């Protein structure tokens, strides 16, 4: 259990998330039962105390203390919230009624200035009402009405002229979409937000860095749920600025980058870069997954890699982003772990095979966390699908790799290959240079 909690990043991640976004993480923890139930419930109440989801907080309180009574301050807060809701609703009412009328919305055009003028002239909706819409949307979000908030925020953005406000509206929209699990829309919002963060000349580089880190944390929700997220996360996180941000202030994100790279077969070229980063940061962040790569590609310590692989299982199973379960009848499985294991095996096998000419299969099976027969089948498959240049020697139950050394002649050809190209380039440029001289 202690080991488990060591690997738990929830507390580190939570600092970079919105309150509402922490909620799913807590749910997951509760489900995995890593921590005592009471603690999680308390954390939930703590979390909710700053939001307006008072009823929900009351419910949790009841289940936590097994009472039917809701503490007085919660009741008071509830009344206050309701009152506030009323007043905000009133303030934003004209605009909302306008927006709810589809025919009227048709009149809006792409030109913001025109829209504002029109609203002001024809419907007496001024900046105050628009501001009220924002407050109302925010309040809705706080209350847990995410879909409403998302709608209002969307409309607010079409009307708003203040870029700071617009940015926070965008953050709100992203959070709402994530919480509603509309991954496609969320991804769109994410990209929009990223563009703004990267393009906008932020007042302070520090603020920009912070925004990037937030964005990366929020994006974890999307990338590990969206179908194309595996590529997305690599694309995003391996951009120089984002990689720098990780190295500066969010080392724990390396876990997710590493996992994404291991799982993604098509992005193997990133591995080298990743290993470099991991090596640089090994003193500031350690995690079985990064250590696995370290063992394999820096220290060539295969026993260590095997040990780490076992730990990886625990980590992945208990990570809110990675350990997503798929229920298949009575069977529940974590698809990501299976992929991870398969790829990790391939990694080990590849590296191992590269430096050996004869390997005992039993030994190999052990390294790959398989039993011998399974390993034999697995290798057989690899050989058959001609991914592997090797033969199995059943008599000594060993695998014999075919050495693939570069032929001397091939080497020479390789060396001489670019000569002709270089020469022709040179000849061409010399000719070009002398031409004007000749004509002169």
């Amino acid at each position, binding site marked *: 259990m202690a080991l488990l909690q060591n690997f738990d990043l929830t507390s580190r991640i939570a600092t970079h998330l919105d309150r509402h976004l922490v909620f799913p993480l807590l749910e997951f923890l509760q489900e995995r039962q890593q921590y005592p139930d009471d603690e999680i419930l308390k954390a939930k109440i703590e979390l909710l105390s700053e939001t307006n989801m008072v009823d929900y907080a009351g419910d949790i309180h009841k289940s936590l203390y097994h009472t039917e009574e809701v503490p007085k301050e919660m009741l008071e807060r509830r009344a206050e919230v309701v009152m506030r809701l009323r007043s905000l609703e009133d303030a934003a009412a004209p605009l909302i009624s306008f927006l709810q009328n589809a025919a009227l919305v048709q009149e809006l055009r792409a030109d913001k200035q025109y829209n504002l003028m029109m609203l002001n002239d024809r419907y007496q909706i001024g900046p105050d009402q628009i501001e009220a819409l924002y407050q109302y949307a925010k309040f809705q979000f706080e209350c847990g009405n995410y879909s409403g908030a998302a709608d209002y925020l969307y409309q607010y953005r079409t009307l708003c002229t203040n870029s700071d406000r617009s940015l926070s509206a965008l953050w709100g929209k992203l959070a709402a979409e994530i919480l509603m699990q509309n991954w496609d829309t969320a991804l769109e919002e994410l990209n929009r937000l990223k563009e703004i963060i990267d393009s906008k000349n932020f007042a302070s580089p520090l603020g920009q860095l912070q925004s990037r880190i937030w964005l990366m944390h929020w994006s974890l929700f999307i990338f590990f749920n969206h179908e194309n997220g595996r590529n997305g996360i690599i694309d995003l996180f391996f951009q120089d600025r984002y990689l720098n941000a990780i190295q500066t202030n969010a080392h724990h994100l390396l876990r997710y980058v590493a996992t994404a790279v291991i799982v993604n077969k098509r992005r193997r070229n990133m591995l080298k870069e990743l290993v470099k980063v991991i090596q640089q940061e090994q003193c500031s962040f350690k995690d079985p997954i990064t250590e696995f790569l370290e063992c394999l590609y820096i220290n060539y310590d295969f026993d260590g890699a095997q040990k780490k692989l076992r730990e990886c299982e625990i980590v992945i199973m208990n990570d809110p982003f990675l350990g997503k379960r798929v229920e298949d009848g009575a069977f529940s499985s974590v698809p990501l772990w299976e992929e991870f294991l398969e790829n990790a095996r391939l990694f080990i096998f590849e590296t191992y095979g590269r*430096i050996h000419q004869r390997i*005992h299969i039993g030994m190999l099976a052990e390294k790959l966390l398989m039993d011998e027969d399974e390993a034999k089948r697995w290798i057989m498959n690899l050989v058959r699908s001609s991914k592997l240049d090797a033969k199995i020697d059943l008599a000594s139950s060993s695998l014999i790799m075919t050495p693939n050394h570069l032929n001397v002649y091939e080497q020479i050809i390789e060396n001489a290959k670019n000569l002709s190209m270089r020469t022709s380039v*040179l000849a061409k440029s010399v000719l070009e240079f002398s031409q004007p001289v000749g004509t002169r």
Partner: protein
Amino acid sequence: MASRFWTQGGSDSEEEESDYEGESDSGLGAGEGSRAQTNRYLKGTNASDSEDSDGQRRVVRSARDKRLDEMAATLDQIRNAININDWVSLQESFDKINKQLEKVARVIEGDRPPNLYIKALVMLEDSLAEALANKEAKKKMSSSNAKALNSMKQKLKKNNKQFEDYITKYREKPESEEEDEEDKEEEEEEEGSEFEEDLTRIAKPDDEEEEEGEEEGEGTEGGWEKKTSKKDRLMDKQFMKDPSEITWDIVDKKFKEILAVRGRKGTGRIEQVEQLTFLTKVAKTPAQKLEILFSVISAQFDINPSLSGHMPINVWKKCVDNMLLVLDILEQNPNILVDDSVEPEEKESQKGADFKGTIRVWGNLVSFVERLDTEFFKSLQCIDPHTNEYVKRHRDEPMFLVLAQNVQGYLERLGDFKGASRVALRRVELVYYKPQEVYDAMRKLAEQRADAEERDDGEAGDEGVVFEEEIRGPPPFVAVPEVVPRVPFFPESSRDFMDSLISFIYEHGDERTKARTMLCDIYHHSIFDQFAVARDLLLMSHLQDGVQHMDRSTQILFNRAMAQLGLCAFRAGLVPESFGCLSELYTGGRVKELLAQGVSQSRYHEKTPEQEKLERRNQMPFHMHINLELLEAVHLISAMLLEVPNMAVNSPDSRRRVISKTFRRLLEVNERQTFTGPPENVRDHVMAAARALTHGDFRRCADLVSSLGTWKLLRDQESVLAVVEAKIKDEALRTFLLTYAGSYESLSLDRLAAMFELDGPHMHAVVSKMMVNEELQASWDQPTGCIVFHNVEPSRLQALAFQLTDKLGILAESNERAYEAKTGGGLDGLPPRRRGDAQDYGGGGGGGKWQDGSFASTAGKSGRSGYSGGGRYGGGGGGGGGFSRDRQASRVGGGGGGGYQGGRYQDAYGRSPYQTATRGSQLETSARMVNLSRSARA
């Protein structure tokens, strides 16, 4: 009595007196009366003090008498020499008496020379005039005598100028002077002896200032000198008679007067400080006091005029005290604003303590603090580090830290964060290089000081004068209680101390301050073995990119930080990192210079005196030095660990990948020796170790390395050495495998492990890594635990084919380079030469530019011919290997035909053909000139 005294006391005393009368609006009579008053006052308040002075008088008197007797003896000698007209011995005597004068001046108050001396001068002058007038006698003189006479004439003329006044006075009434001398001195001693010690360097009245128009100033100056030297008496005359009579105006006037003569030739610097210090006591308002205090401080800085010397230590201490006083005042009167941007109004400081609005006073606390720190630093630079004085000086560090801390606090409260961060930087710079032990020692010292009333007895002697002065003086009008804490506050760990300051500076400092702080931070982290943190700081700040454009001392700081980072990496066992940090320091062979820890003599070019001076000014004080022996050991060992296996890799292109040129050169030199003696210094040790390592003899290598004495400077010597030994084993294994791979078919893991005393898994990892990196053509046979080598020895044909492709590659490359040269890339890049003197190749850039210039003026055609000339040179030079630049020049001069320089010459002259022999000889000179200038640039 008084008036009589005054007429005799100084040469221009009459003038003074009258001057003074005019100024202070009080008659002579009043002065006399008040003098009596003071005496009473003094007796009443400070009876013990006057006893003190009595005691002191006796001592001083005997010393003085001795000196005067000596002088009298010399005078006799002079007299004799004059009589026999012996100018050689006269000259000697004159030098002697001058020396004695210095000594005498030290004992007695030096404001006027003793009459004996003046008498000697007068005698000399007279006899000189006589001798010169007597042309006959002059001719008769021996040559040496005549020479002496002439030089005497010069000397005397120069010397007497200083004493002109006295001499004329003496000439007027030699007798009375002599008669009264004694009793005058008696008098003087009664009151003045206290101050004599301090007033040794009193300025002589300046002749030039006596010119018209200056007279007034001169007069007052003299008056003030007098006043300070006999302070008590003057004090009552001017101020003590009745405090109520002293007005702001009087003080202000005096103050302005003193300031007016500041920096003038002949103004006594110490004098001024004394005068101003006195004024601070009689200042009427806090603002005025502050104003004067600032001038005191600047005057104290003025005491040492030269850039290289340092401020006298006791003055420095007083200066710190003054600064603290300033802070006290500021603390008490929050309405006073110190500012150096606006010139305050005339009467600004007249506003009293009860004035509510803001009062502006001109001054700059930050620069004062910075100056103080600089002076402290300079004093440590100058003092011999092996003396007790050096150690003592270090004890003053907390004093400065208190001040800096207080100033910083004050500025922060005021909202001047920029200034505060500058002060904070100074504090950081005093602490950053201290390991925890030293820091603790400093902290303890500071605490002890707080207990023991801050001053230790050893120094009481120096400061006694100051002390008594304070006691003697009247109670200052503006009393300032000590508000500001006099004890520095130090957190437990130096890291905390640094952190608090650093984060403040990062927030508010300007670019340079931040950069310096960052470097200090890196240094500090490195000392505390936090390599990763230090490295990240360095990389994130991008300091290495911009450091070339920073000032010298920041560059030195950068070098120091890099050196320390390298040491830190080595302690952590990160050999490549350590090497990366240190190699640059060692490439030029100028480590000492780069770290500012001594001057290294360069064989190749002499430094100008200015350069040397500049260098000396930037030297680090001894206690901040990084041990060079340790640094060298670390650098060479890490170079060895990287380079030896690298040399063993016998792949065809290994020659190009040299990791450490310095190391290779050293090793070559070492190997060239016919007999190798036992290792003596660090370098010998490492070289011997490297040779052992090349043979895979890790044991001997490790022994040699660990036998170095310099390791004892490391805190955790054992663990570092253990790491080093492990690294040596690894590298020995790698070297062994690379060297002997060809001789083995297979090797068993166990056997290899036994050979190198390594454990199996680790060994496996090391060998695996080599296989993966394709350094070693081999693979594992897992069931038997063997390394199987697949060495394919290339056949002769294959080897030749390899060579051929290599050559072709070089050819293609040289073609490209030639093309580049033609299009303006620099003709010097021709490969044959480049290879020959790759070591000192460096003029390429300059040469290229030159070539550019010539190209601009030539048409394309001649450009081509020039190029072909260059080509020819390339062909000729290829055979001979490297041509040094001088040889090129002589070649052109001798041959005259088709040389490289010829081609170039043609370039420069456009189309004009170069054919005749005369042209050729002209060419020679011009070519040589180009060469010279270029090598100078290189």
